[in-house]
């Protein structure tokens, strides 16, 4: 269980003005839940994810994992970034093996586990390729495998499909759900796409910006396993999407507000 307890984050901008990125956020994420954080750019949703990851410490408040305060990154929380962040000097296999090796797994075992994971994300045969030789979608599959390789309890996904084209994005969403169905890890998923949030999640946390606040938390009560083609025709799915979009429209904040 992840508990976010009255977290605020203030950034100093270059003009020495304090920018309130997150204001008094409290949120609890149950084990095994797929939770999306949805909001316009600049609402601090990624910052919230980085705080749970332990990459950024909040100005005030506290984030807790299994009752213990988060003070830094750890292999119990695995990030997947929009920018992939693969090590360019390592091959696909080398990237995936990095975590297990860091955990002290023997080289032969780490290699076997990693190869199995690479196959699971659909990249069998690409073990010895370098990231530069892969397409964006393939890179993100490698990044996912690299994170899964050290068995985190929570996946922290920071707009992971944001840099991909629409077609690749759909395929990766499906594959992510398939992988998730197997072991149902806790997932915290940041996105600005309403459809993506509704399609993937059990719970959608809607945020507004300036300052970054939680507007509303919506439970998505749709059956699993979900199939995209069926869901698109499902009126319940359509209603969730439309309702959420309406809520964002109502609050139409001026776009130029820094």
């Amino acid at each position, binding site marked *: 269980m992840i508990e976010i307890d009255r977290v605020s984050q203030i950034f100093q901008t270059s003009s020495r003005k304090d920018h309130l990125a997150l204001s008094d956020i409290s949120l609890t994420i149950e084990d095994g839940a797929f939770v999306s954080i949805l909001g316009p750019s600049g609402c601090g949703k990624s910052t919230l994810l*980085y705080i749970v*990851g332990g*990459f950024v410490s909040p100005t005030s408040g506290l984030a807790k994992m299994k009752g213990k305060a988060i003070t*830094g*990154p*750890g*292999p119990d*929380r*695995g*990030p997947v*970034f929009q*920018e992939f*962040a693969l*090590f*360019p*000097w*390592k*091959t696909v296999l080398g990237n995936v093996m*990095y*975590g297990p090796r*860091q*955990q002290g797994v023997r080289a032969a075992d780490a290699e076997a586990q990693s190869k199995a994971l690479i196959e699971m994300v659909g990249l069998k045969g690409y073990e010895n390729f*370098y*990231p*530069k030789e892969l397409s964006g979608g393939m890179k993100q599959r490698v*990044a996912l495998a*690299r*994170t899964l390789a*050290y068995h*985190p309890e929570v996946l922290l996904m920071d707009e992971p499909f944001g840099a991909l084209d629409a077609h690749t994005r759909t395929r990766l969403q499906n594959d992510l759900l398939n992988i998730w169905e197997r072991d149902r890890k806790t997932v915290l998923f940041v996105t600005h796409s309403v459809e993506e949030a509704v399609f993937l999640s059990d719970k959608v946390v809607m945020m507004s910006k300036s300052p970054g606040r939680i507007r509303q938390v919506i439970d998505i009560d749709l059956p699993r396993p979900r199939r995209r083609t069926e869901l698109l025709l499902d009126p319940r799915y359509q209603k969730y999407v439309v309702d959420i979009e309406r809520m964002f429209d109502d609050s139409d904040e001026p776009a130029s507000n820094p």
Partner: protein
Amino acid sequence: MKTNALTGDVLLGLVPIALVIALWQGLVSFGFAPATLLPPPGLVFARLLQQLVTSTFHHEIAATLIRLFGGFSIAVILGVSIGIAAAANPAINAVVRPIVRVLAPLPKVALYPALLLLLGFKHESKIVLVAADALFPILLSTYYGASTVEQKLIWSAMAAGTPRREILFKVVLPAAMPSILTGCRIGLVISCIVVFLAEMITSTDGLGHMLVTAARTFQAVDMFVPLITISLLGLILNGLLQALRSYLLRGFPEA
């Protein structure tokens, strides 16, 4: 297709070199320049080949190479470690930055007389001068490379359980490698230049000394030989570094 274009480029590039040699030959053949001032290229290259097998010439080259590699190695070790330390630690950064700003534009060759006084006329003073000149390009590009390492690369490694002290070696150093090697390349060329100049200014051996000795006795042919040697040496070393670079950076885009 690609190789064809490449060969075309190489051939096109040989044209000006051939032109220069032809012009050089022409100037001598048609009597525009007396052979005492500008010896014909054939003579210079013949002289170079003849020299290449003599033991005195080996001795001169060895002296130059010891100084070159001595100074360059010191510059690489210091430049990379100071550059990374300055990028990693704000306190070190605050000290290093102003010192580098003062020392980088200072013409290091002006320090040479002082080095001669302090370290003597042997290898040491020249090695230190080479190191001082090659240090800053390596330091600055290492610093630049290390401080522009993508934050999320570091975060990914930390989340995978890498302790903070290992991040420097496991992420920052390899990620900064392209820029470090660019710095080394500049540093290497500077080393070639500086070692030669130091030997010209004052020395008892080395390629630069050969040039000065030849100049004193107006032996034009012997003046060209060390010049061409240092140019070839630079090309060869540059080629080796390039090969090392494409091996080390095989994973990086546009290596």
